[in-house]
């Protein structure tokens, strides 16, 4: 048993460590600001996690020292064994809790607009506090178990505020075990008897409540029609998002569209290069030489080669020719950066270019292109 427990604990430990490591990929990709309330909570969670880590270590220490003592006495009560097991479990749980915290700190923007995230944070705080209380209790227990034992033997059990066992018995209306003969149904199937216990009252109540809920649910959606059907739900969601988006873009001076976009400077082009590398290489080749998609380095364009044309192509796509719309993937600024990078590829003459497609494009001199660069290339997504 001891061995199994050790294996279990070690496995859980390793497991949670790997889980922690599994967080890595996301933290690398996400970068953004967070809302104030959430920040506070995340800080709170981190602090609590540190406390838990301290308590966890203390707990392990106290358990070890207790084990040594127990070895001397050569008498380990099974309940103590169980308590130690729970302790170990909790320590591993705490490391998982820290992992959750890590997750919360690294990807706040993912969920910053959901009220559910706030609830999640509160839940984590609550759980952490619970763990702290439990740890404190366990440490107390392991540091001086003898005292507890003595106390248990000497004192009569204190009357608890709620007698759970009694409540449970009452909830189920349990009959005492020695009264069983009186409720035997008399059935005997291959020696299996059946008792005539009543259905637990909480079961009946629960069943009735679930039926009420079910009919209420049907009534709400299909009779009263007071809850939105899925198409309406979608319309609401989209409308809300659109409002938020417009609100956001109104305050962004770097908002661009296909009419206002201009060729960016070196910073913008290099940002575009990064985006290109991560998203476009599969079809257009590492050097823009083309592949599944057309060559971007030559003078020939299927849909014109001006900066505005390229921006338009990116934004709306050319569905029937296999170019998808990227407006759900890239922000306007990113599309401007990408367009600028693509434009900068002209004439680079990569080693194995795809043959020319489309028409020869000659630059239309655009008065706006001369204007100062309006886009802050360092702006975030």
């Amino acid at each position, binding site marked *: 048993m001891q061995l*199994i427990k050790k294996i*279990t604990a070690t496995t859980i430990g390793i497991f949670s460590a790997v*889980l922690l490591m*599994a967080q890595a990929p*996301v933290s690398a*990709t*996400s970068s953004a600001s967070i809302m104030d309330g959430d920040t506070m909570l995340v800080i709170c969670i981190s602090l609590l996690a540190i406390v838990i880590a301290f308590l966890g270590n203390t707990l392990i220490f106290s358990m070890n020292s207790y084990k040594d003592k127990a070895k001397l006495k050569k008498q380990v009560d099974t309940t103590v064994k169980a308590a130690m097991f729970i302790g170990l479990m909790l320590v591993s749980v705490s490391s998982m809790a820290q992992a959750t915290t890590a*997750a919360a700190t690294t*990807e706040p923007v*993912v*969920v910053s607009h*959901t009220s559910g995230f706030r609830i999640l944070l509160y839940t984590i705080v609550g759980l952490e506090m619970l763990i702290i209380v439990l740890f404190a209790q366990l440490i107390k227990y392991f540091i001086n178990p003898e005292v507890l034992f003595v106390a248990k033997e000497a004192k009569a059990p204190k009357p608890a505020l709620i007698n759970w066992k009694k409540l449970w018995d009452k909830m*189920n209306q349990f009959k005492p075990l020695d009264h*069983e*003969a009186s409720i*035997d149904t*008399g*059935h005997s199937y*291959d*020696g*299996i*008897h059946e*008792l*005539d*216990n009543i*259905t637990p009252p909480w*079961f009946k109540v*629960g*069943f009735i409540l*679930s039926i009420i809920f*079910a009919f209420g*649910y049907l009534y709400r*959606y*299909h009779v009263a029609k007071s809850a939105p059907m899925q198409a309406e*739900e*979608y319309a609401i969601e*989209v409308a809300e*998002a*659109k409002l*938020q*988006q417009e609100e956001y*873009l109104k305050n962004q001076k770097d*908002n661009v569209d296909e009419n206002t976009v201009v060729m960016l400077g070196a910073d913008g082009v290099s940002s575009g290069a990064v985006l290109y590398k991560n*998203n476009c290489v*599969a*079809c257009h080749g590492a050097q823009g030489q083309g*592949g*599944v998609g057309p060559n971007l380095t030559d003078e020939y364009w299927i849909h014109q080669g001006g900066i505005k044309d390229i921006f338009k192509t990116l*934004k709306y*796509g050319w569905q029937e020719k*296999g170019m*998808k719309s990227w*407006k*759900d*993937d890239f*922000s306007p*600024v*990113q599309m401007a950066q990408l367009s600028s990078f693509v434009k900068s590829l002209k004439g680079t003459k990569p080693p194995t270019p*795809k043959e020319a497609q489309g028409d020869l494009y000659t630059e239309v001199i655009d008065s706006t292109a001369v204007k100062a660069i309006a886009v802050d290339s360092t702006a975030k*997504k």
Partner: protein
Amino acid sequence: MTVTHHQIEYYSTKPKLSTNQSHPYMELQKFTYDNKIPRNFAIATIVWGAVGMFVGVIIAFQLAFPALNFGIQYTTFGRLRPLHTNAVIFAFVGNGIFTAVYYSLPRLLKTSMWNNTLSKIHFWGWQLIIVAAAITLPLGITGGKEYAELEWPIDIAITLVWVVFGVNMFGTILTRRERHLYVAIWFFIGSWVTVAMLHIVNSFEIPVSLWKSYSWYAGVQDALVQWWYGHNAVAFFLTTPYLGLMYYFLPKAAGRPVYSYRLSIVHFWSLIFLYIWAGPHHLLYTALPEWAQSLGTAFSIMLLLPSWGGMINGLFTLRGAWDKVRENPVLKFYVVAVTCYGMSTFEGPMLSLKNVNAISHYSDWTVAHVHIGALGWNGFLTFGMLYWLIPKMFNTKLYSIKLAATHFWIGTLGIILYAIPMYWAAFRSYFMMKAFTPSGQLQYQFIDIVQTVVPFYVLRAIGGTIYLLGVFLMVYNLIKTAKAGSFVATEYNEAPALEKVYKAPANPFWHSVIERKPMVMLTLSLIVVAIGGLVEMIPTFLVKSNVPTIASVKPYTPLELQGRDIYIREGCYNCHSQMIRPFRYEVARYGDYSKAGEFVYDHPFQWGSKRTGPDLARIGAKYPDSWHFNHMLEPVSMSPGSIMPPYGWLFDQDIDIASTNSKIHAMRKMGVPYAEGYESEANKDLAKQAQSIADNLKKDKIVISSKKEIIAMIAYLQRMGTDIKTDTTNYSK
């Protein structure tokens, strides 16, 4: 084992109150219990269980390391996953059910099994079906509907064997020496009749050739029937027969009376009545009519307590026997099994709430949920039964109680390590899926999410491996046990025959009347389980407004149809859905949400239930032909970081044009509007379209014969979702 000893002790002190005891002066009849058939079923359970779980472990690792199919078409995830699910459901649990029935039924009825030849036909028939499944599924012979993949000849074989089982079971029941039927038998009867109904209705298909058929139903209707079936396969194959199993083996092993006879009655009838309605909760937020979705949700919520009835009766039966649980591994397994049952039947109704389902559907949460049920409830209940049954049948003690206890701990650990990463992965991917930047763009590409969950797939595979190791311990332990004992092929018993005329007590309990009339019980069960399906299906089939037709939706061209069959053969639906839900993040990622009218020619529907890869409902015209070509040849070339395996064989194998004729014919028979006589034209059209795709590829310097399967695949992929593709995204045309 000490259980039997305890049990004798308990019952010898009981007063004989039985009302259905026959008169003592009646002549005792001698009869036998056959142990050979249950032993054979038990061996089959163990063998297929190990095989099915091993395949599960392989495909779990494949999700992280796609190269693990070794480039062989027969071992891809898409083909092995149906093998895994079919093996664990129908081979492992199926044989587990039959072990329990063939062992307990004669004993509960004080008679021999009715016909030993039928028992043998049942045993060997079922094993042959499993072998047939194990051969055909990797070959890509599949109906393309989850948990009902087996092709029509096997479907017929299943029906026949199931009838043999039923005849044998009812023959036994009708020749019984016990007046009333015990609750375990109610569950066996209810399960038998419902599975028969589910299998027959869902397997309506029109054969095209010996190993190919199309589902009779299309699109939304097919989805409804399939999930009515799929959900109730869980209910009436994985749950109710196992409740019957529990009601026999748990009180036996614990030596305790069943806690509440009345609870048995309440939860049996409410469970089978309510369960059947819940199917549509697998289709929330899809194109299924919303009234049907709501029925699914409402009935799932009502299902919670009836399900818990079984858990309560199981756990409370152990009242006064908890001291035995500490020593007896059989009871340990039962306690965790019943607890897992309680957990997953709580989780189930929660998952059918719309807002929870929005998170869980298509995600690894569902996978975690079913595995709590499968590994915990079905697995552990089976293990407990075997640890109890094998020593008994070999008239010896279990070789090692300690080893069984170790198996218990390892198994529990395996379940935990399986489930946690899946829950975790589900929530992470959900939050990533729905993340938008403030300026309104999706924050993550699908591939980012795939990359994030891959480590969790590894952890899950490790959890599964640990669980499987436990099974190997059991195999060793049981072999040792069997070797130490000697097999008792036949057991003898005697009991008086039932009196011809039964004088019921003056005021019989109403339910006891049904308990002594098996045919009434059978009929009532059938009526009770038929209601839900009828109420949901008839309007969906007959009322036009449920599936509004869309004029622009046209039947597939012959080439697309062939491509679709390749899609089905490769089991693409195991990782890709074809159903975009009306959520902002899904529409932004995959395109406009799916409408019911788009699927009217989809025999079978391919909506899928899990998105390991992205949704494909509107993949058509999103990428050039050459993108698909390169992607199928080497997915990472077009989608770096992809965990999809390469499909090299599509580039070597020719399209099976000989089948086009019969395929078109079959489709028209089911109402797909191909012109009369189009069969003879079809292959000409097919060749023309294939040539145009090959020409198109040539423009991108790809040279391939237009006869190859990849051409058909590209045709189908490029067609998908384009019928009503709105051009709002294209600013000009």
